[in-house]
């Protein structure tokens, strides 16, 4: 049975300094509220894993939470670059950032292997590219039947995976729909998992396209309304495309970014504490 907890407690108990942490959500249902909570709790030395480290990881990287990033595409979708990510890679600011770089197909299969309890996955990938030269977690394997050589990538098994979903019931069964990305795999691959949801309800009405994670496959659930903003939660709110553009102006400059952390992330935490809001987010 998954515990129903506050976002503060969920992150506090499940995310530890030095952990390998995956926040997943492919454009849709990105766990932004949880990302800000990690910044507020001052986590350090995280190895962050994510196929598309968009602005949620730009924020964590800029705030100095990460020592390493495992990823396949790091940009601000539809806008341009991730300036905090670039600054960390190019100038080690605020701390050096080691990177481990894959393709989407490789990352997706690494999660699949992790969710499947296998040590590695096989794919037709990377052949002829410069990625294997720089990424030690790409090797080659020979088919025992045909002799063909294929790429192999090791399983991803994060210490903790965090995703956002539309709903959970009071037992902690989680329901999401729309684009579901690699969230199921990320949760099943992880040692612990935290699912933030738009709302906890008495009963999960079936929805076309739903993916349901049973309560016994999830460690904790925290209510976090609008917890995917500025990304979106299908059936709840739309993607805030303006915020992605706005982020470009915040992330571009170190001081502006620091101001954002102070004024929007830390202040969000104080506001929450002051009002005793158990969800921990607006």
């Amino acid at each position, binding site marked *: 049975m998954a515990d129903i907890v506050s976002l503060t407690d969920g992150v506090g108990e499940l995310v530890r300094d030095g952990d390998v942490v995956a926040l997943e959500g*492919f*454009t*849709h249902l990105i766990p932004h509220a949880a990302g800000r909570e990690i910044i507020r709790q001052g986590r350090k030395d995280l190895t962050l894993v994510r*196929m*598309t480290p968009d602005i949620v990881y730009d924020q964590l990287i800029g705030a100095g939470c990460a020592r390493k990033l495992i*990823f*396949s*595409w*790091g*940009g601000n*979708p*539809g806008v341009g*670059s*991730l300036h905090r*990510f*670039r600054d960390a*890679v*190019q100038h080690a600011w605020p701390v050096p950032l080691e990177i481990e*770089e*894959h*393709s*989407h*197909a490789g990352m*997706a*299969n690494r*999660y*699949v292997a992790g969710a499947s309890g296998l040590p590695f996955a096989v*794919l*037709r*990938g*990377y*052949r*002829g*590219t*410069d*990625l294997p030269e*720089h990424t030690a977690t790409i090797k080659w394997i020979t088919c025992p039947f045909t002799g*063909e*050589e294929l790429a192999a990538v090791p399983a991803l098994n994060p210490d903790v995976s965090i995703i956002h979903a539309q709903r959970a019931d009071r037992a902690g069964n989680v329901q999401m729909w*729309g*684009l*579901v*990305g*690699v969230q*199921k*795999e990320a949760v099943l691959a992880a040692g612990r998992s935290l699912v933030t949801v738009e709302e906890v309800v008495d009963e999960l009405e079936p929805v076309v*396209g739903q*993916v349901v994670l049973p309560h016994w496959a999830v460690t904790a659930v925290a209510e976090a309304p609008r917890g995917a903003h500025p990304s*979106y939660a*299908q059936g709840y709110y*739309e*993607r805030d*495309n303006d915020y992605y553009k706005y982020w470009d102006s915040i992330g571009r400059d170190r001081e502006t970014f620091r101001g954002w952390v102070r004024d929007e992330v830390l202040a969000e935490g104080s506001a929450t504490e002051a009002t005793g809001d158990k969800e921990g987010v607006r």
Partner: protein
Amino acid sequence: MTPAVSTTAASGAQPDYTSDEMMSIAAARALEDGKRCFVGIGLPSTAANVARRTHAPGLVLIYESGTLGSKPDVLPSSIGDGVLAETADAVIGVPEVFNYWLQPGRIDVGFLGAAQLDRFGNINTTVIGDDYADPKVRLPGAGGAPEIAASCREVFVVVRQSARSFVEKVDFVTSVGHGSGKGDREALGLPGAGPTLVITDLGVLRPDPETAELVLTQLHPGVAVDDVRAATGWELRVSDELTRTEAPTAAELSTLRTLKEASQ
């Protein structure tokens, strides 16, 4: 070499469309009706959606976010917009997109962008500079591109042309085009035909059937061969059968602009 068309700009009159619009429309025209097209965001998505609204209503759009057969009524501003899922024939998880649909060669056309593109159509979206560990510019990285470039039956690249982006050799091979020339893809065991078409804001390049080197085969209206040469970082060859792109029709332009406005 006797180009089939005038190699200087056709006319001094100011066209009523931008070179980006010409590029999108040229790219849209390249998409045949009924084809399955793996669509990257930005220029490829714009072109694919124009095609679907003009000559190719049966074009099947596949987005790596997990949609098969999306029919968005506005231009998605990301590859994972809700409209892509809501209008799709099927919504699937990301691992399935790559493993069941892309990898086995079910997709006709992979539609990619590039930060750097070289003479043999190899694509770099990883780093600018010689040192991967200490890059001049850190780019977003691979995303789905390496396997799209490997597995789609053919690849169309849409990219703005400049001497900075069209280089002799890319700093980093993120996605293989034709490697170091004809035969390299076969030797590597890459199943698709690789880039068969590179559509820019100046014209269209195609791989030479003998060498796989990208050759200028088509000029957009108002563009001279020398303009393209100046925007190419290698000694550009021009096809004997150089053609001239037809200017955008009023219908094409209006479709493109309506789409773009609706997505503001």
